[in-house]
């Protein structure tokens, strides 16, 4: 095929030296296309940010696309106080952090037994965790709702932490087991030769070596739990226990929510997520580059 045609001309000089030169015309087309795509993705958030700090009068006069005449913070402050937003932030944060830590820990334990230990019936356990990860929450919700009521855990953050730790770790176990299945045997053998037991090997060898993957898992668990909507919507009914998404989600369509208040509420929902995103962005990059050094 074409492979023979492209193979024959032997290039003179080091090929990796100046690859950029030949691509010059394509370069900016590619970059422009990517930047346009980026703009399309980010545009909705920019529109929200612009209108969150616009006064209702300014909005009525100039519409959603103009820049605000002056910065107007009352919309955000009023909304914050009205829904006691600080409380919701704390609820969301503590739940997500606990789930991320516990979920990663549980995933590591499971994956250690399945990926490295290769215990009997591991395929069936993996199938179980895969299926558990696939289950729609709807098939669990009513019994969980019923059981948590009889255990007096209904309308409590504890129930949400327990449920999401298990649900997230099902995904973590599945992903981490396939990573651990290819864990370098030499490292395990070396630890065994040094007389390290299984716990020691896990804590001193397996966890440190797989830290980049664990950081990525932690990030996903935190963000996914922060963003969870369905179960918190059903389990956290009192105002004091609501998480950020539930508080914002149930207010949607409320008659009191005009265009600028809607933007203000969206913006204070976006900001914490953006903050974590910037923090995690580093972890993700560090994790990814650390994974490259092997």
């Amino acid at each position, binding site marked *: 095929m074409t492979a023979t045609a492209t193979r024959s001309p032997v290039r003179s000089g080091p090929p990796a030296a100046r690859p950029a030169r030949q691509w010059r015309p394509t370069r900016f087309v590619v970059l422009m296309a*990517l930047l346009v795509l*980026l703009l399309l993705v980010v545009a909705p958030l920019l529109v929200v940010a612009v209108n969150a700090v616009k006064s209702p009068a300014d909005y009525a006069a100039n519409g*959603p696309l103009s820049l605000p005449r002056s910065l107007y913070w009352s919309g955000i402050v009023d909304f914050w106080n009205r829904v006691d937003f600080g409380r919701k932030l704390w609820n969301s944060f503590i739940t997500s952090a606990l789930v991320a830590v516990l979920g990663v820990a549980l995933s590591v334990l499971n994956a250690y037994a*399945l990926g490295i*230990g290769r215990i009997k019936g591991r395929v069936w356990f993996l199938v179980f965790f895969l299926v558990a990860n696939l289950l729609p929450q709807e098939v669990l919700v009513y019994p969980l709702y019923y059981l948590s009521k009889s255990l007096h855990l209904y309308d409590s953050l504890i129930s949400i932490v327990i449920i999401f730790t298990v649900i997230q770790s099902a995904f973590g176990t599945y992903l981490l087991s396939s990573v651990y299945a290819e864990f370098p045997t030499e490292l395990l053998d070396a630890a065994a030769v040094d007389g390290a037991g299984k716990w020691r090997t896990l804590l001193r060898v397996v966890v440190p070596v797989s830290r980049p993957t664990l950081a990525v898992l932690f990030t996903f668990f935190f963000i996914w739990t922060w963003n969870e909507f369905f179960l918190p919507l059903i389990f956290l009914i009192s105002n004091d226990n609501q998480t950020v998404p539930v508080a914002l989600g149930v207010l949607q369509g409320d008659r009191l929510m005009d265009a600028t208040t809607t933007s203000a509420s969206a913006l204070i929902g976006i900001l914490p997520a953006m903050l974590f995103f910037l923090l995690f962005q580093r972890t993700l990059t560090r994790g990814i580059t650390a*994974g490259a050094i092997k």
Partner: protein
Amino acid sequence: MNKSRSRGYGVFLIPGVLASVAVIVVPLVMTVGISFTRWPGIGTPEWIGFDNYTRLLHDANFWASFGHILSLIVAMAVIPTLLGLLLAAVLFDYVAKVFGNRWASLLRSGLYLPQVLPVAVTGIVWGWILHPSYGALNRILDSVGLSSLARNWLGDPKYALFSVMAVMIWFQLGYPIVMFMSGLQRIDPELYEAADLDGANWWQRFRAITVHMIRPEFYVVLVTTTIAALKVFGQIFVLTRGGPSNATLVPSYFAFKNFFEKAQVGYGSAISTVLTVIIVVLAFVFLRLQTRADRSVR
């Protein structure tokens, strides 16, 4: 030799198994049991055999909700995975090399942004942008003289599903990009250099090396995004609540309505059970494909 390593590891699985039994196995079995009963959520469930399931087969809403899921699989799994693979390869192997890592990670971060936003917030943002009277999209169309294209994007049964699909692509695209870019780090740069030496162009390297090496991530991403599409609830709840006139009804929202609005817990359980069976069957198909692919690599 694997046998000698496999002893004594079972103990590490105990907490995971106990927690899974309490949170997953018991509720799952209960839901399947309840699906054979009529139960408003209080009192004693009344055994009615397969009545809920025969009722499902004649329920037009049930069929419609599964039809909509097919569209959402396209929007949430197929398009983001394929586009994400291409974009990840372009960012990793082209942008990073030609413009530097800074540009690649800037673009990756930007495209991943929608993934970190709470679904409810996404709903508020898009619900407002797509609003027929004061929404930004119709305003933009007006201002560039295309007001004839303005629509009631979420309120018109003809366009609601497409609008939701577009929002889903926007929402989902970043996940495959991040997963694939981290997977690409595993690839030995020498492979690319060897391909360069052989005079392979970008597209040939993409097909021969990237697509081949990224296979484990590809399956994981395709599996997880397809499941996400089948389970989608939050976006539907905040954008359309299944409307207008059930044009965007999905099984999970259909089940939710029966559980908590109509107090038809038995019927809701039957819907959830059917959805679960479909997902599990799909999962086994995926799993088979994956093991087969693994074998062909070895």
